[in-house]
């Protein structure tokens, strides 16, 4: 069954604002948590990952936060742009079985 899940299925954001997409997980033994982006009609694309012994990791305009106390991770997108409109998935890597487990996805819509 699904061990990572997203809090909200949809998110509407004003262009230029910051977006926060949340995800909860149940497996404390996971090695990594990962975020993917899927644009309409395309396959998912890797955004960023974070190892379970870290609290924060930054990329280009994105930051992932990991709160192990409440088993929660979030993806923050700075200065959201129209090209950020997509479905975002969180996923976990248990570290031993060559597989990722994906959550259901949050659809982000950017309003002009």
């Amino acid at each position, binding site marked *: 069954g699904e061990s990572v899940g997203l809090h909200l299925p949809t998110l509407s954001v004003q262009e230029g604002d910051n977006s926060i997409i949340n995800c909860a997980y149940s497996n404390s033994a996971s090695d990594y948590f990962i975020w993917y982006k899927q644009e309409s009609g*395309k*396959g*998912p694309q*890797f955004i960023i990952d974070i190892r379970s012994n870290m609290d924060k990791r930054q990329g280009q305009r994105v930051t992932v936060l990991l709160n192990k106390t409440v088993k929660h991770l979030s993806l923050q997108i700075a200065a959201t742009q129209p090209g950020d409109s997509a479905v975002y*998935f969180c996923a976990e*890597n248990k570290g031993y079985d*060559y597989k*990722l487990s*994906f959550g259901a996805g949050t659809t982000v819509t950017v309003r002009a």
Partner: protein
Amino acid sequence: NAGVTQTPKFRVLKTGQSMTLLCAQDMNHEYMYWYRQDPGMGLRLIHYSVGEGTTAKGEVPDGYNVSRLKKQNFLLGLESAAPSQTSVYFCASSPQGSSYNEQFFGPGTRLTVL
């Protein structure tokens, strides 16, 4: 490099028919995966392979078979298609030696079973 390609892009089958979906990658990746994506359910792993000649079951393997005879190709077969197999199918690959967090996905195959 073409990356990960999938053939065909669309297909309509009748219940009971069989078909094979082809995935090809030109990145010399060791690991390859087949997922299905249904509305509201994210990506579910069907089968995967950690090297040429090896395959393993994922989360939802029933009704599907796979083969990895060549490193660059990963085939997904439906022996007797059912309406429940209507879905979008994605193939992905990742290199050995990495944490395999970054998987490279193909454009998908939209399959409808009537």
